């Protein structure tokens, strides 16, 4: 069974906007933005695709400082994912183009995906 090659690149938060701008100018499209809670940090994946080539930018956010700049000014569809990671993980994404301010999903608890109940 064959599987596609996937490139995952670790970057710092400060590199996010310039890297995304380069990718968008190069013809990549945003595939998804997702978070994974790890033991000591929050892993944030920005996944892109061009001609079936999968490319992922990965940021490790300290759990004490969950803040990211929005990429929605460069990459328009990002606002949906950024609102989602805010509601589910409590990430404070600044300057989202359309900000639902915590009302994207109708949740009983704040940041339910940050609770460790494994």
């Amino acid at each position, binding site marked *: *069974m064959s*599987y*596609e090659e996937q490139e995952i690149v670790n970057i710092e938060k400060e590199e996010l906007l310039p890297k995304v701008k380069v990718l968008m100018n190069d013809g990549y499209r945003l*595939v998804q933005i997702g978070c994974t809670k790890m033991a000591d940090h929050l892993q944030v994946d920005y*996944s892109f695709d061009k001609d079936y080539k999968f490319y*992922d930018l990965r940021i490790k956010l300290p759990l004490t400082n969950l803040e990211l700049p929005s990429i929605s000014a460069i990459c328009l569809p990002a606002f*949906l*994912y950024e609102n989602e990671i805010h509601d589910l993980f409590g990430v404070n994404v600044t300057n989202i183009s359309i900000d639902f301010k915590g009302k994207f999903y109708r949740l009983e608890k704040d940041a339910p995906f940050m609770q460790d109940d494994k």
Partner: protein
Amino acid sequence: MAKQTIIPFGPQHPVLPEPIHLDLVLEDEVVVEAIPNIGFIHRGLELLCKKKPFQDMVFVAERICGICSFIHGVGFCQGVEKIMNLEVPKRAELLRVFWGELSRVHSHLLWLGLAADAIGFESLFMHVWRVRERVLKIFEETTGGRVIFSACQVGGTRKNIDNDTLRRIAKELDEIETDYKELADVFIQDYTVRHRWSDIGILSEENAHKLGAVGPTLRASGIAQDMRMLRYGGYVDVDFEPIVETACDCYARCMVRVREVFQSFDLMRQAIDKIPDGEIAAKVNGFPEGEFFSRVEQPRGEVVYYIRGDGTNFLDRFRIRTPTFANIHPLLAMIGGCALADAPAIILSIDPCISCTER
């Protein structure tokens, strides 16, 4: 400046099979902006990966949505199989292609029926769903279920179809295709259908790419992108090209789906011809440790599963990005500038699946 009115569309609406809310900002009868509002059926299914053994998560994945059920199972299983380096038997891979393409036929027939109903063509809706019923009977015969089949498992499939049954089903598919062709001709040639859907909901090729559209919504704007071209699983053994239309309107999106049904019939015949004898599942030893972004093509477009295991029986993360989630922003672009009366047809044209979107 004209006076603006806001009209709520949804969450309950006759054309919507599932709840989504759009605030349509109108100037006279023209929609100038649409503001989405989702979250009515968010179930937090992804969190269940921490409570359910990884082999049981395929049942959760299948229940993300009833229409896309089987392919959700395939995408999940594929991700785990990659992490665990499992070699899925060829028979299982081609059975997955068969059931996956039959799911695509089912999904597109469901949409074609709803689309006909949305424009008031009720007899066409009933005929399309009559044909869909024959597809559901094949599902029931081969898997025991009409909507959620539980046919996929990590390592292969849980159910087999013997070769005699496969040959009989191949003949039945020919009959269903003949029956369907009559209805497809109505979608292609009928003046009412063309007139109702042409030149509305325009999504240019540039916007389709920039806004991250996927699936038939993207292919109707002239971009030949189909995740089956990654040749995952049994798709390495079948021949096809992405179906593309260039008109960028609702009618083009309808035509992509009409033609994909024919393509799926052909893919199923190819899978049946090439299916070898053998096992249907590999033995699964141990637990997944690693990560992978599994990408497959749902009837609505690209779906991505991020799966991460830490070597225990429970996954660390199971994140799904479904095609309707990606198509929401293109929808907002399509709907700007349309007449209010065209809004339901445009919204339906992306084939929204809100259960998938919200999980």
